[in-house]
């Protein structure tokens, strides 16, 4: 009898606890981190009962909704511009804080049946391939980088994303850093005016074109290259080493770039310092309001952000994202602790 009463008591406590925690957060933004975010929101709900609804409508949409205040937080693959931050400040009356969550790598995949070991490329060569200045696989500049590989006498078919994307942003940002001509002629953005090449829609579109086209080269997210068993090039980094893209080399890039990361964490880490750093990688961010209005929502959000930094990072690798280096996690935690609700600090146990 006593046990039964105990059980009933526990049930009631459990139920009330559950109903108290019934806070819902709405978010929208980038598609690139959608896989890990949905995993995080799922796991987080299991633990706390807090539901987070995320619409992966794209970074542009995410930024827009944050400015308009129609979501509790947003997500973007590219940092917001100063103008956008100003607009948000005017419209929402508070600053937007950038919180990097995970890292992603962009790899150069290719289709060369004759070659069975990864080829090596450096920044200038990649830029010239994408500018159309190098158009044969056995071009002197590629062979010099690959003395031990016999490259075929085939024309290079360049493939790029046709849709706007954070992947394109990271890749073109890298090319702008390593090639003056690229910076002058093309520049960087979520979509650019490509000098040459075929456009595929989405990572899956580019992957499809590469897979089918002999002699193709294109940039895709690491996960797509691994899952589709496409080879991808080793890229020469700032220290002169040829590095393969993987979780370690991407995290190393973020760690290598840390001294250049500004206080607001809006940083691109392409072509980062460090001998093991993979040069074409970048953060993806959550965009949160520095001062929030709703106390229970603010608490739920802070709770989630802290959980994502402490526990969430462990989910990254299995989903083909790279976890943040410890130093960035520390910076993030400082940022999270500076968030307020109606001017008061947010207390979460």
């Amino acid at each position, binding site marked *: 009898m006593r046990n039964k009463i105990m059980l009933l008591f526990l049930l009631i406590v459990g139920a009330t606890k559950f109903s108290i925690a019934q806070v819902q957060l709405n978010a929208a933004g980038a598609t690139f981190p959608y896989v890990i975010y949905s995993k995080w929101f799922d796991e987080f709900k299991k633990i706390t009962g807090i539901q987070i609804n995320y619409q992966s409508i794209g970074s542009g949409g995410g930024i827009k909704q944050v400015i308009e205040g129609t979501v509790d937080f947003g997500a973007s693959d590219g940092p917001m511009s100063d103008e956008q931050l100003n607009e948000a400040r005017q419209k929402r009356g508070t600053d937007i804080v950038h919180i990097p969550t995970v890292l992603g790598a962009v790899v150069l995949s290719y289709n060369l049946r004759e070659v069975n070991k990864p080829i090596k490329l450096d920044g200038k060569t990649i830029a010239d391939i994408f500018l159309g200045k190098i158009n044969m696989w056995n071009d002197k500049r590629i062979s010099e980088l690959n003395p031990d590989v016999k490259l075929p006498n085939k024309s290079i078919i360049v493939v790029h994303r046709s849709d*706007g994307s954070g992947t394109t942003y990271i890749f073109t940002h890298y090319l702008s850093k390593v090639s003056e001509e690229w910076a002058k002629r093309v520049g960087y953005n979520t979509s650019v005016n490509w000098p040459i090449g075929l456009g595929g829609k989405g990572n899956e579109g580019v992957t499809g074109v590469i897979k089918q086209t002999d002699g193709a080269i294109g940039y895709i997210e690491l996960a797509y290259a691994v899952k589709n068993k496409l080879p991808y090039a080793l890229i020469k980094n700032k220290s002169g080493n040829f590095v393969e893209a993987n979780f370690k080399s991407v995290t190393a890039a973020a760690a290598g770039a840390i001294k250049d990361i500004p206080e607001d964490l809006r940083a691109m880490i392409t072509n980062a310092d460090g001998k093991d750093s993979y040069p074409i990688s970048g953060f993806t961010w959550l965009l949160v309001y520095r001062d929030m209005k709703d106390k229970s929502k603010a608490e739920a959000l802070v709770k989630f952000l802290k959980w994502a930094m402490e526990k969430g990072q462990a989910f990254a690798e299995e989903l083909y994202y790279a976890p943040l280096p410890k130093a960035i996690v520390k910076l993030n935690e400082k940022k999270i602790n500076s968030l307020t609700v109606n001017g008061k600090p947010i207390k979460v146990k």
Partner: protein
Amino acid sequence: MKELLVEKSYSSVYDKLKRNSLKQANNIRKINWGDFIYEKLTLFFAIIVFLLVVVMGYEMYVNSKLSIDKFGWKFLSEKTWDPVTEIYGALPSIVGTLVSSFLALLIAFPLSIGVAIYLSELAPSWLEKPLSFLVELLAGIPSIVYGLWGIFVLVPWLRTEVQPFLYEHLGFLPFFRGPMYGFSILAASLILSVMVLPIISSISRDIMRSVPSVQKEAALALGATKWEATKIVLANSKTGILGATMLGLGRAIGETMAVTMVIGNRPIISLSLFDPGYTMASIIANEFTEATSELYISALIELALILFIITIVINAAARFLVWSLERKWKKI
């Protein structure tokens, strides 16, 4: 729609008489309130459709104001589409849209008419039913499925078989030159032609079938061949078939997903059908989600406005064509 197209080809004198007599009848009769409400209510629904079109046009105009003010008419003649320097021009995508759609029509029209003639005039009924069903089934396949089929079947086939063949035999024409990627205006046109074929053929079949069989039977009784009898049917359904073709063209112009997947997505203007291209609907679908700057979004909306206007103009032109041909044929 189908009935409307058919009726048009019949004497409009009869229509006029009918309308006049109805008017007179209405004058004599006392007002029936039920009829009154019925008429006004349906009028209201009809107006809603009209308003919807107006509001859509207006909204697109307002939201693209930024880009219209900045680029003016140059937007239509500019060839660059560069989100980095924020220079936007619609010419390559307008050309891409029109070329791929008209080419699709060129391929699909003769096929569709052939299908329609066979189904309505010649096919035995045991074959006609399943064939009609299959044709209509084609119309119901989602465009993403066509797109995937395009990427995995059509494009490789074009690259390895069709394009080399065309280059070898017709390479002296500027349309069949250049590198063969497979992803091209040609691929887009072929996919579109498969997509519009069921629309044109099934509507044409219905129209041809609604031609009174007395006419055909009379011709056959006078010793006409099957082809001669069919010619009579075709002559009677000319305007209807034209209308069906325009519906098909409308579908081709607006098609997004399947085209994006095979056209290669490059905003260039090229004579060669082997080269990649871009269409307006594809640019919008591709870039809208990640467009962050105001001008960028505004330029994309202006593209939508142009697409909207082109669709209206083409439809109006088709109506005009049907109308003027009808008059000409009546005289004969």
